[in-house]
């Protein structure tokens, strides 16, 4: 293990350049530790985003040596065994400054995908009992732990090629709701996620599934949406 890490960090907005820093290497050091060291000791004007530091909030995702990752859960020794780190903002999102991205387009697409709950009952109705082992509930459970970190979105080539594409996270959210038996927005949601900017644009490259820190498989969710749209088409509901 080298004593120092040679770190290059993106400075600027969409236009900018990488700056070089030398950071002491420590045992069990995370990439977020490295960024924090730079901001506190070397470059106070460095902008970056984090909150929980334990992999719960999803706010510290950055591009580390070319791969989108949670920096708080990424050990330096895992991604930079030779002591060289390149840290950049997430891809496919506008850069506000340095390592901070504008997440609005990411979350706006959740709304476009109808990734919100359409209730079938009112607050005066009894609480619906959802059996945990039904196929639908299992399918929802498989994707429900998404915390919206945008690692999948930054890893998706289709988003890079087609800025309108809803992206893996929004489509995964739509699929969890399609499998929520309390939800009534199914057909409207299927129409919203169909087409050139929706689930049918996915090339099944599986970068999202490969990179998801929560081990969710948005690719499977997107495949589920494709099947559901076809069933809806054949049933005359689309």
């Amino acid at each position, binding site marked *: 293990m080298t004593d120092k890490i040679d770190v290059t960090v993106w400075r600027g907005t969409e236009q900018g350049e990488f700056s070089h820093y030398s950071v002491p290497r420590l045992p069990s050091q995370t990439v977020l530790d490295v960024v924090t060291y730079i901001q506190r000791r070397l470059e106070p004007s460095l902008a970056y985003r984090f909150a929980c530091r334990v992999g719960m909030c999803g706010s510290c995702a950055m591009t580390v040596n070319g791969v989108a990752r949670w920096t708080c859960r990424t050990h330096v020794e895992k991604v930079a065994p030779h002591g060289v780190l390149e840290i950049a903002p997430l891809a496919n999102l506008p850069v506000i400054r340095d390592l901070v991205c504008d997440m609005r387009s990411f979350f706006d697409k959740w709304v476009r995908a109808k990734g919100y709950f359409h209730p079938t009952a009112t607050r005066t109705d009894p609480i619906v009992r959802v059996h945990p082992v039904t196929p639908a509930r299992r399918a929802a459970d498989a994707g429900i732990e998404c915390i919206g970190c945008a690692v999948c979105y930054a890893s998706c080539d*289709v988003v890079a*090629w*087609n800025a309108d594409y809803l992206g893996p996270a929004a489509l995964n959210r739509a699929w969890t709701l399609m499998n929520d038996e309390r939800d009534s927005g199914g057909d409207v949601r*299927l*129409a*919203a996620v*169909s*087409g*050139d900017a*929706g689930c*049918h*644009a996915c090339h099944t490259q599986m970068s999202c599934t490969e990179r998801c820190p929560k081990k969710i498989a948005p690719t499977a969710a997107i495949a589920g949406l*494709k099947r559901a*749209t*076809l069933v*809806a*088409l054949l049933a005359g509901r*689309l």
Partner: protein
Amino acid sequence: MNPRAQVQLWAAKRISAAVLALCVTVHLATMIYAVRHGLSATAILDRTQGNWVWAGFYLLFVLAVSVHAPIGLRTICGEWLGFNSRAVDVVLAAMGIALAAVGLRAVWAVFAS
């Protein structure tokens, strides 16, 4: 394009891809067989002329290509070249029809000539 048409397009692409997976395999195996056994053009035509099975097979092959290629090119035009207009759809539909016409002419040639 409305969602219904989008899903129809996707289904056509998937179904034609499944057909092509079979057709390309059979076509390649047939080519390898013909080459390794030294079949001449005359010998091949002897087998295909008036053969409804081969004509049906290549008819299916040509139709699958005619459906699949324009849809795939439409995606490439949109994602890589940024061409998303209605005019592109029309041009690609015309290309699909042209592919079908040329392919069917070839099928007819080896079946009837």
